[in-house]
């Protein structure tokens, strides 16, 4: 973990109510694993709001990294107003990220909502190591989708919208079945109901894939000090920030 001030390079709208902010900071960008996160202080001075906010690495390029976030409250609204040159205090990288398989794998990524944020970094890393990647991304409607251009071109990209306004209609978990024979490894990030549905789909036939998920919990500290982010798993109580955010799907659901 490094405590640092990152310099804002740009803030752009990504889709409905979501933004991508690029930062420069060698201390924070280097040596992260996909799926790790940073704690970002969303205030210029002092300490209001008091706690930093956790965000996954969305993309990393040398000494630069991007966060993708939806504006849901004060902190994210503040972040979306950052201009190039602004300095933002943060600490990271934190948590246990994803260790990709050593052998070439057929990797299926399943994302819902803003859960796509870390999956883009994961896809870029996986592609660069020669893995085959299919990304299935679910959103409420077409306006809430990250443009396909944000993904590496080697990735086969499948869109699912609840209202059918783009790609397949329904929930991602209703469509993963089509890829289960192909996939040898599955990673997912999204809301808890998506994980529960995914567990139901995978339970019978696809345990061999050892699906892994990136989880969220309220995180006051992000580095194992407060015990606020407990996740109740089949292997006991774990801390989302320190033991996770990566967990085996079937340890939790």
């Amino acid at each position, binding site marked *: 973990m490094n405590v640092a001030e990152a310099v804002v390079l740009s803030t752009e709208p990504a889709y409905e109510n979501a933004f991508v902010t690029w930062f420069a900071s060698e201390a924070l960008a280097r040596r992260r694993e996909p799926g790790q996160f940073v704690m970002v202080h969303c205030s210029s001075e002092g300490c209001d709001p008091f706690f930093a906010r956790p965000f996954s690495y969305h993309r990393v390029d040398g000494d630069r990294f991007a966060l993708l976030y939806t504006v849901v409250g004060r902190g994210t609204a503040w972040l979306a107003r950052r201009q190039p040159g602004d300095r933002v205090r943060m600490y990271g990288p934190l948590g246990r990220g994803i260790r990709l398989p050593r052998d070439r794998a057929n990797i299926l990524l399943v994302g819902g909502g803003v859960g796509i944020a870390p999956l883009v970094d994961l896809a870029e890393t996986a592609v660069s190591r020669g893995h085959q990647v299919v990304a299935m991304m679910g959103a409420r409607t077409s306006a809430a989708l990250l443009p396909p251009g944000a993904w590496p071109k080697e990735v086969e990209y499948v869109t699912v919208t609840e209202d059918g306004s783009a790609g397949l209609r329904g929930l991602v978990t209703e469509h993963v079945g089509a890829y289960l024979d192909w996939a040898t490894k599955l990673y997912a990030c999204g809301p808890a109901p998506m994980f529960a549905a995914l567990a139901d789909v995978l339970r019978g036939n696809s345990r061999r894939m050892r699906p892994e998920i990136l989880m969220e919990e309220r995180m006051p500290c992000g580095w194992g*000090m407060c015990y606020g982010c407990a996740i109740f798993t089949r292997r006991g109580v774990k801390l989302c920030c320190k033991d996770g955010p990566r967990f085996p799907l079937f340890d939790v659901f």
Partner: protein
Amino acid sequence: MTASGTFSWGFEFAEHFDIEALGAIVTKGVTPRPRAGNPQPRTAETPLGMLNSIGLQNVGIERVIEEFAPRWAAWRVPVIVNLAPDRVEDFGTMARMLDGVPGIAALELNISCPNVDTGGMEIGQDPEAAAAATRAAVRNTDLPVIVKLTPNVTDPVPVAKACEEAGAAAICAINTVLGVAIDIERRRPVIPRGRAGLSGPAIKPIALRFVWDVAQAVRIPVIGCGGIRTGEDAVEFLMAGASAVQVGTATFANPRAPLDVLEGLKRWMESHGVQDVREIIGAALPKGEA
């Protein structure tokens, strides 16, 4: 030093920073048996602070002795173990178990946890129970025994004096202040138990009031705790009569907080020509009573 429950067992900090720079560390609250802690949500952010209801999640005293103490023994920084059993007599049992264990420098009795159903804060609200807990611990160990007070009483002096008479080596003030936050969309408390413990800069004036009152009433040292975030905050506590301070919730927001407080204090002393902290301990108290 660091405040209990805000520093885990010290290993995370030691991985990233120089733990030997600290005066002492206080561990998470330990119970006789392992505890899983409370369900989610366990925390709520509040103006300049937080509510917590962690519920004393910990591995239990046996694993603390077997697994953690040997690692602490390799450090020079003194490690103070915070004890949080739910029965008065268990303070004695636990103190005996920790007596003479290498790596443990002192005990801090948590008679002030608001987030469990039994024991905890009830003991700290009753001078007789507090004295009994202190006596039980003191009789069973040669380690110094610090007693940590709850602010959820009108007057802390009777409890503090009772603990002093029962043999406490120091008093720590304060634990968290009872509070509630409401989720207005769901018309429910944010924390399932309703009441939770408030900490952070929001409680600093309350903590200072307790230190102020207790420091004038007892002869043993008082350790100030509550909302400390900067060197200047520490100076305030020292002037209110504290001999040492603990940094708690500030560490969540700023991983370097305990070091920043220490460095800030040193800078303040240098710029004010203060050579020794003893020069300012109790400096703001009414004359003749400190």
